């Protein structure tokens, strides 16, 4: 009897102990989200990522914040700029080159140091002030060009900072989404510890150390970093925006540049989420219960026309005919398996900068043929045009196949399209050199895709005459006084709603002028395990990982 009682007591004790031990584990089981990126390496982690917007998506907006940010909460509405580390901002009424930004109180960097006006000045100086100790040439290229008019920063008080631009520029708050705030205290810690022959060498060593142990103010903190293999981020439970404290404990980023490898990793359960799965695997992914997400991105896949003397595209009838001769729905449903949005301009309806163009870009072969005949071309007199493109490249989607589709389509409207296929980086370099440069190789159009996140990137650099090479990307030397006037108007309109209206006017004018051959927008396809929930894919290059949960 005694034995029985002892045994029972022991069993109860063991059961109680094991239950007690198991309970906290079950409650606190770590949730991990593993993502296969298209990048071949982890984008730079020191605050200003490389690898374009994929870099910003994964190592910018995760670990860092900027003064302004993007609203990524809706899949339906266009993503617009919202307050970030600045709660409000205002341009000086008397001097439109001076802006005052009020900073968000109570924000700390991951290392515990406070975010304040000194930190903003320090971060502006890291890319603009060459004699600042923290100036880093490697971060300048990916920053300065995205905020071309920003000149300097000055502290007003701990929570107020003044930014100055080289000329009045209402786009500044939008451009500032690209300037991520790194912790000056953490950097200084590494600088003080660094060994080096001089201040420059110490600075470089400090940035190298910072990249391995970074500190921003973002919703994710760096936990472990193995270059070229993985970056592990953990949630920042103290994130200032409580609605955006991550729901997942850990996020692991894995570079997988090959689409089939990414898809196989997802199918085998090695990752939970892949960017840009192999298009031909989409049916299998769907059939096996994986979820697919895609949405219109601010991205344009165009032909940019040469407008230099003698270019066949100088005739607006020809430009309009080309735009009317492409069956974009056919391109979407056939070649691209649904992974594109037909382009009817740089911005589509619903976007605040769309405007009301009178020229409707659609498939109307008869109208296109009529326009070409009016311009003096026909079945027996074709117009020869030459386009420079690449066989691959970031954002280029499927350039060769798509261009061959265009070649066939345009042939029906009396175009004889020649393709000049060159390597992607060379095409990119030639883009800066312009249509008059020998590198254009006689082409009168170029096919370089572009991001359309902000007005400068989306419109100004292509349409303003002053942006012609070597200044910027007006490759075709467009010189239209109306565009220049509208750019000036938009830049100098500081009320956000009025500025958006001015940008819409500029966009509508560019569509009415058939400034480009607008073909497609990318849709940022991604596939993920059914365990991943809460995903909102906005109309943006970016996505908010904070909203994502993992089912057991």
């Amino acid at each position, binding site marked *: 009897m005694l034995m029985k009682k002892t045994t029972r007591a022991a069993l109860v004790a063991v059961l109680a102990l094991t239950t007690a031990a198991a309970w906290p584990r079950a409650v606190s089981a770590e949730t991990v989200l593993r993502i296969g990126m298209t990048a071949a390496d982890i984008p730079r982690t020191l605050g200003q990522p490389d690898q374009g917007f994929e870099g910003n998506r994964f190592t910018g907006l995760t670990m860092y914040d900027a003064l302004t940010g993007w609203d990524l909460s809706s899949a339906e509405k266009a993503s617009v700029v919202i307050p970030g580390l600045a709660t409000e901002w205002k341009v000086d009424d008397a001097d439109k080159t001076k802006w005052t930004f009020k900073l968000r109180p109570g924000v700390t960097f991951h290392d515990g140091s406070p975010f304040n006006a000194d930190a903003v000045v320090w971060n502006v100086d890291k890319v603009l002030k060459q004699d600042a100790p923290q100036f880093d040439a490697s971060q300048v*290229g990916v920053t300065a*060009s995205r905020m071309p008019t920003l000149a300097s920063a000055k502290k007003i008080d701990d929570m107020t900072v003044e930014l100055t631009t080289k000329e009045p520029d209402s786009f500044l708050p939008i451009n500032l989404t690209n300037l991520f705030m790194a912790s000056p205290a953490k950097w200084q810690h590494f600088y003080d510890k660094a060994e080096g022959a001089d201040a420059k060498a110490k600075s470089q060593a400090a940035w190298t150390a910072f990249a391995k142990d970074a500190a921003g103010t973002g919703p994710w903190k760096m936990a472990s970093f193995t270059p070229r293999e993985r970056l592990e981020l953990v949630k920042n439970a103290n994130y200032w925006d409580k609605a955006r404290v991550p729901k997942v404990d850990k996020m692991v980023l894995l570079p997988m*540049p090959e689409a089939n490898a990414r898809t*196989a990793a997802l199918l085998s359960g090695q990752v939970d989420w892949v960017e840009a799965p192999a298009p031909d695997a989409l049916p299998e992914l769907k059939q096996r219960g994986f979820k697919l997400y895609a949405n219109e991105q601010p991205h344009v896949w165009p032909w940019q026309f040469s407008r230099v003397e003698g270019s066949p595209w100088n005739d607006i009838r020809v430009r309009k005919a080309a735009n009317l001769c492409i069956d974009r729905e056919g391109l979407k449903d056939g070649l691209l398996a649904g992974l594109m949005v037909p382009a009817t301009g740089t911005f589509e309806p619903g976007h605040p900068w769309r405007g009301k163009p009178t020229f409707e870009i659609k498939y109307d072969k008869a109208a296109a043929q009529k326009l070409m005949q009016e311009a003096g071309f026909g079945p027996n007199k074709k117009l020869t045009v030459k386009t420079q493109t690449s066989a691959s490249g970031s954002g280029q989607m499927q350039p060769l196949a798509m261009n061959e589709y265009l070649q066939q389509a345009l042939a029906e409207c009396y175009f004889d399209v020649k393709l000049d296929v060159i390597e992607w980086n060379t095409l*990119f*370099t030639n883009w800066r050199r312009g249509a008059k440069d020998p590198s254009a190789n006689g082409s009168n159009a170029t096919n370089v895709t572009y991001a359309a996140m902000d007005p400068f990137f989306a419109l100004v650099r292509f349409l303003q005459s002053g942006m012609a090479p070597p200044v910027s990307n007006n490759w075709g030397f467009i010189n239209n006084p109306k565009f220049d006037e509208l750019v000036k108007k938009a830049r100098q309109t500081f009320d956000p709603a009025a500025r958006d209206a001015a940008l819409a006017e500029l966009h509508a004018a560019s569509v009415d002028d058939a400034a480009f051959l607008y073909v497609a927008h990318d849709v940022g396809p991604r596939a993920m395990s059914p365990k991943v929930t809460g995903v909102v894919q906005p109309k943006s290059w970016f996505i908010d990982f904070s909203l994502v949960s993992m089912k057991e």
Partner: protein
Amino acid sequence: MLAYIARRIVYVIPIVISVALVCFLLVHITPGDPLVAVLPADASQELAAQLRTAYGFDRPLPVQFGLWLLRALHGDLGNSIATGRPVLAEVMRAVSNTVTLAIAAAIIGFTMGILLGLIAGYFRETWIDKLATSFAIAGVSVPHYWLGMVLVIIFSVQLNWLPAVGAGPNGSNSWAWDWAHLKYLVLPAITTSVIPMGIVTRTVRALTGDILSQDFVEALRAKGLHERGVFRHVIKNAAPTALAVMGLQLGYMLGGSILIETVFSWPGSGFLLNSAIFQRDLPLLQGTILVLALFFVFLNLMVDIAQAAIDPRIKRG
């Protein structure tokens, strides 16, 4: 022997300098902007010029080469333009991953190749020979990236036995010879091993057949030497040539395979080279090519010395 080794080392010096020159020039004469990794296409001329000066790309090519070579001799291959990390550290880390993969692939490929080659050579013109030769031909002919994908589909996607990509589990920052890491190695190593397996099989088969048909083998057998003894003679005579072939194959494997490493996202030198090319990261590209070329030269030197040690006739030649 020492004189032979010294002579071979002296021969290597001009080769190394030529290799350095060629890899420096290769990346400079290709079109495109060397700053494409950090310089967006819409960057102003002023910014481009500022960065060009900061990275030293504004200086004349001979000066750039001289400075680069001088730094390289001191073990400094500069910093990657894209990541800012020291090139040497990047390359050595990648090379160590490739060496791990190459060793595993060499063990599989050479063992299988020698075995199949000997069997095929001993049983020439029989069905055994035909089977072994078919394996060898398949090994050489099948596109290895395709084979890699097939293996991934079977063993990762369908059976879920082995990981499809990567070089180790989450949270692991270095390689270890345990199953948690080794399972990441299995598929890329098998894929990498098929070409050396095929080539070694064919070489050993041809050598074995050739040696077995020589008079001295008949003489050995006539003198009553046991077949095991004959086999030892065959091995000894075949070894120098087989060793040279294996050395070259090992060199190729140490060079990394862009395709295999990309298919498996194996962070080796091929994968690194792929990123360096796509990012047009010139210092990284130059550094990677230089280190890999030096590996190749060094390996050839080792093979030459090993051959001479096994077969004294070689050093006389």
